[in-house]
Structures are given as structure tokens and as C-alpha cells.
């Protein structure tokens, strides 16, 4: 998928992706020549179809997790997977989520919410952060390149 600025005859570059939380998807692209920006807006069905393929519009910013599609989309038992991928320490600290952070997480669509939560949790565990707040989420987003999460 490419976006072309017809006036400049230049391929537009991916700028950011956004997941508004209503099942739809948005991504913006800008012209490197004239700076014009356009947004690609996908409805629920289109978003779902792309998600079902296990691919990311704009390219992947994070390495694909094991069985990511199944774990984020299958409506299965909560204890199906035992995650041993998190770093082990003698006394692992499980960060708490603040109410504000949980509210923000709730706006992430269900089919990626589990994966997003794990990314922020991994970030906090690796840095010994006891509580995940919106501020921590912003820092993680900047450091990990999680546009739109």
C-alpha cells in the first residue's frame, strides 16, 4: 500500500497510526516535498480484516510475539497460557496499574489490548517501575515507538 502526492509526484511517508477505540483504525501520511498530510481511515470490517492477517499498516515497530494473533483474538480461557517470557529476578515486581492508566488502556480495542498491556508491563518490569501511570505509558510510547497506543 502506497500513498502518492499527485501534485509533487512523490510517495507520501507514514507518519502515525491511531486506534481510537471504536473498532476503527487511522493512519496518517505526509508528503516529504510539500508537507501535505492525508489520513487513511478504515472502518470496523476493514480494520478487522487487516488485523486477522496479523500484519501492521505502516510496518511493525515491535517484534511479533509468539502466537500473537491467537493470544490477542481468541476468546478462550484466561489461564490458557503461562508466560515465562518475562525476565526472571529473585523477587519479580509486578507493577500496579493506576486508575487513569487503566481507563486509557480500556480505550485500546479488545483485539490488541492484551498485547498492549503486556508491552507496557514488560517496560515497567524491566525498569523496576512499581506503578504504570499515563506518564509511564507516554514514556514507553516514546522510547519504544508505539505510535497510537
Amino acid at each position: 500500500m502506497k500513498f502518492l502526492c499527485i501534485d509533487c509526484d512523490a510517495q507520501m511517508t507514514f507518519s502515525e497510526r491511531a486506534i481510537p477505540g471504536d473498532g476503527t483504525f487511522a493512519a496518517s501520511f505526509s508528503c516529504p516535498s510539500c508537507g501535505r498530510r492525508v489520513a487513511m481511515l478504515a472502518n470496523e470490517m476493514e480494520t478487522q480484516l487487516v488485523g486477522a492477517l496479523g500484519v501492521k499498516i505502516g510496518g511493525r515497530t515491535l517484534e511479533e510475539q509468539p502466537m500473537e494473533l491467537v493470544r490477542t483474538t481468541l476468546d478462550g480461557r484466561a489461564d490458557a497460557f503461562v508466560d515465562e517470557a518475562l525476565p526472571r529476578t529473585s523477587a519479580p515486581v509486578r507493577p500496579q496499574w493506576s486508575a487513569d492508566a487503566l481507563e486509557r488502556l480500556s480505550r485500546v480495542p479488545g483485539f490488541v489490548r492484551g498485547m498492549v498491556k503486556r508491552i507496557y508491563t514488560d517496560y515497567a518490569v524491566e525498569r523496576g517501575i512499581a506503578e504504570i501511570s499515563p506518564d509511564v505509558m507516554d514514556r514507553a510510547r516514546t522510547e519504544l515507538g508505539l505510535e497510537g497506543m
Partner: protein
Amino acid sequence: MSFRTYHQVTEPDRSRLGEQVGLQRARVTARLAGVKRTIAVMSGKGGVGKSYVTSSLALAAARSLAGGVGVVDADLKSPTVARLLDTRGPVRVSEDGVHPPVSPHGVRVMSTAFLLDDGAPLAWREHPGERFVWRGVLETGALREFLSDVVWGTLDLLLVDLPPGADKLSDLAELIPQLTGAIAVTIPSDESHASVQRSMQAARHQGVSLLGVIENMSGYECDGCAQTRPLFSGDAGAALAREFDVPLLARIPFRSASAAAPRARDDAIEGVVAALCPSDVVIA
């Protein structure tokens, strides 16, 4: 047209959707690099005992092959292999991938049975509209991850228990270019013959090698007199083998004692494993 089209715009595609799909397939190939044979067990007809045959083959292979045996339960909606092999979750996840639960007999198993609540149907946490558009894509994606993200390690034999019908074999053949082939399971009846014939034709059309036919429920083995009596009319196994010029690998009678679980030892099934893996059978 006053502007360039996709291929005329030669700068790289930042989304690289095609490349992402290609990488998914490459992961399947890489993960199965240590698997000597991947064999699909298929049938055009439901209720012929395909999962029972798969489980019996897996148990026999676990006894006679030293290099390891695995089973992918590709019947996502109605998984039964895990129960037949007495295998339970949870599924462990590490940085290497998802580790398959192992049966008491040493068979590595991956199935939606480990992931779904008891008795719950296969369901996806997704937007409820237009499910018909994306449900099949998700199911194929799940099968792909069962192959690419499970730590199968090195195996002499990986069996894939397919749901009834021919479409999933087509998906499997595209996901696994090195697929060894497929075994067709039938019961003796004319109805099964017609149904399995269609799926075998579809397999051949897709370029999948047909390794043979197994006729299940070939009569009823009487517990009292040890004689085998007819259960269904027809001779579908031999007829299909003849029509497709493939071996009739085994005829398995119905035994009431083994209806709930595969038999501990079955000469016919042991013979199938020896025929499929002639160079690796090490235990008599």
C-alpha cells in the same frame, strides 16, 4: 492516468504488508526445519474417526520412532486429539515460542482444546459485524501460528489432524511447501467413498502427494467370539486406493473396548507407521 501506479512508484512500501506475510510463511518453514515428515490426516467426511486414527498413529509412532512425534489439531472448532492423547494445558510461553503440552506417551500436541473453556465454542474477541469476511482468515492465521510459533524442535513425524472437507488441506499445503503428503481416512460406506473421493481429488489437484488410504470401522470386532462382522456395507477403502493408485494402508475394525481411546498397540497402525517412516523405525 495522470499519476503513477503502484509498481511505477519504486520507493519501498513502508507498510511492507506483502513482506510481513512473506515473513510469516518463512517462520513456518524455519520452525519446521527440524521436522522430517509433516503428514496431513484428512477426510472429506465427518465422523469417520479421523482424529482417532491420527491419535492411534501418533501413539504408535511415539513407540517406534526415536526422533519425536507431534500432532497439530487443525480441527479448531471441534478439537478432540488432545483428549484422545490424554494431554492437557496450560501452554507455556517463552522467548523461544509456545511450548506444546506433551502427552504421557511423549507426543507433543497443539490444539485449541488447551485454549478454550470446557465445552465452549471457538469464538474470537472481535468486532461483531461481517464475521463471514474475516473468520476464515483468522482460522488460517491460527493454524499458521500453530505451525510457526510452537517449539516443535526436531521430530521424525508431525501429524496434522484436519477438519472434514478439502479447504483446510489447501491452506496447509500453502503454509507448508515441504508438506510430505496426506493420508485419507474413510469408512466402508458408499457415502463416505463419494465424499472422500472428492477430497482426494482436491488434494491431487493442489499437488499434495497422496500417501494412502486408511479404512476405519471396517467391521465390528466381537468381544465374545473375536470374529469381525460387517458394520457398514461397501468397500470404500479398497475402491479409493484402487482409483487413486495408492496403498490401502490399513483396515481398522471397530472395537468397543477401544472406542473411547486409541488402543495401546495395534498391528495395523504399527504397520502404517513403518510404511510412512521406513528409515526411522527403531523399536520393534
